[in-house]
């Protein structure tokens, strides 16, 4: 009986603490929006963060995209070949990348590369009283530190996703056309006939924008909320990856069902 009560107590505690964290994260989101003026007035601040989140993620994005594209080309070819429609390989690669893999894999890589860096940086700034010092200098750390990173993430993510999709398609092209020898004309024309700008490409960009907001907020919140100790920061960094990944995949399902349904 007692253990049952204990169990419910634990469940209740974990639910309320989660809701509490969600609330604080939402509050942080609004604080960021309120304090965003400076990120655009002094765009140099945001520019620097785009460099750290976007440019520094370029290599991992391009390399992974190329491999993902090549694998799609190979797997797609062997499957489609059975049905005698190997020219459709272009459509398969392009649709898979533009609609799903581009935004999703980019967001997952972004969470691992840039998200963890943001969490660790903010967490350490908090642990070493840098945020406190800034407050004492009458500078709002949300406006000066958090908001530029937020906007940098939101701007960088769609750009990275577009690069991922394009490089992935080039990877698919290399395998399908150059290595296997599918007809080049069929590869591109089939793709163009079946990939719609508004419904496939723009929707992909919208997805990556949403992922950008989610990933960056999670990374910033985990850093801002981290206990100011070495252990606290390292745990927060781990949580950034786990939470971001789950949220990205969950949001992807929701967004996809809206986009296909509507």
């Amino acid at each position, binding site marked *: 009986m007692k253990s049952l009560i204990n169990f419910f107590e634990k469940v209740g505690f974990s639910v309320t603490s989660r809701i509490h964290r969600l609330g604080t994260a939402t509050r942080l989101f609004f604080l960021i929006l309120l304090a965003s003026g400076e990120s655009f007035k002094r765009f*140099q601040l945001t*520019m*620097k963060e*785009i*460099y750290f989140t*976007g*440019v520094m993620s*370029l290599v991992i994005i391009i390399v992974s995209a190329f491999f993902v594209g090549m694998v799609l080309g190979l797997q797609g070819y062997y499957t489609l070949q059975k049905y005698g429609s190997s020219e459709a390989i272009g459509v398969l690669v*392009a649709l898979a990348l*533009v609609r799903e893999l581009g935004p999703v894999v980019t967001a997952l890589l972004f969470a691992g590369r840039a998200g963890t860096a943001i969490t660790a940086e903010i967490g350490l700034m908090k642990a070493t009283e840098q945020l406190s010092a800034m407050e004492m200098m009458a500078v709002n750390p949300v406006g000066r530190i958090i908001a530029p990173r937020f906007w940098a993430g939101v701007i*960088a993510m*769609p*750009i*990275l996703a*577009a*690069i991922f*999709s*394009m*490089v992935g*398609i080039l990877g698919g092209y290399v395998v399908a056309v150059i290595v296997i020898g599918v007809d080049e004309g069929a590869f*591109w024309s089939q*793709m*163009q*006939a079946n*990939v*719609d*700008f508004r*419904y*496939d*490409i723009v929707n992909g*960009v919208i997805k990556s924008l949403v992922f950008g907001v989610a990933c960056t907020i999670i990374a910033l919140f985990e850093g801002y909320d981290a206990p100011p100790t070495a252990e606290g920061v390292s745990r927060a960094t781990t949580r950034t990856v786990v939470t971001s990944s789950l949220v990205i995949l969950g949001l992807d399902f929701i967004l996809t069902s809206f986009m296909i349904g509507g």
Partner: protein
Amino acid sequence: MDKIKFDAWVGIFVAIGVISLLGLAMKVGNLTSNDIRETYSVIAHFENIGGLKPRAPVKGAGVVVGRVKSIIFDTEAYHAIVKIDIDKRYVFPKDTFANIYTAGLLGEQYIGLEAGGDMKNLSEGDRITQTQDAVVLEKLISQFLYTKASEED
């Protein structure tokens, strides 16, 4: 010095992003190939649209000339009203015939337009009066069986 480095790299980054997006739009997507920008819309009534969906292609002699904009059910006459957007570059006579066809045996359904002989052309808001419904496989089969049965009698 750092400032210049950041600016330059972010510039390159954004440039690659824009090129990728343009590449996706032009080379991968259909933004150039059949961009239907300016359209006029006409409606057509069907007793049965089968599996026709919004955004299904509208073809004239096999060329995509427009898209299905919306499909609604008319509660007074109990039939479907299909709104079609046709590219302004293509004109069709008033007595054009609209059929619902299926691409291949199991493919998606589209509307095929067959031009009539009228001197006047369709314009914004007009109605295509001559339509032919989608072929519903079950109906076809039951019709076939029925006629077979009545022949045997």
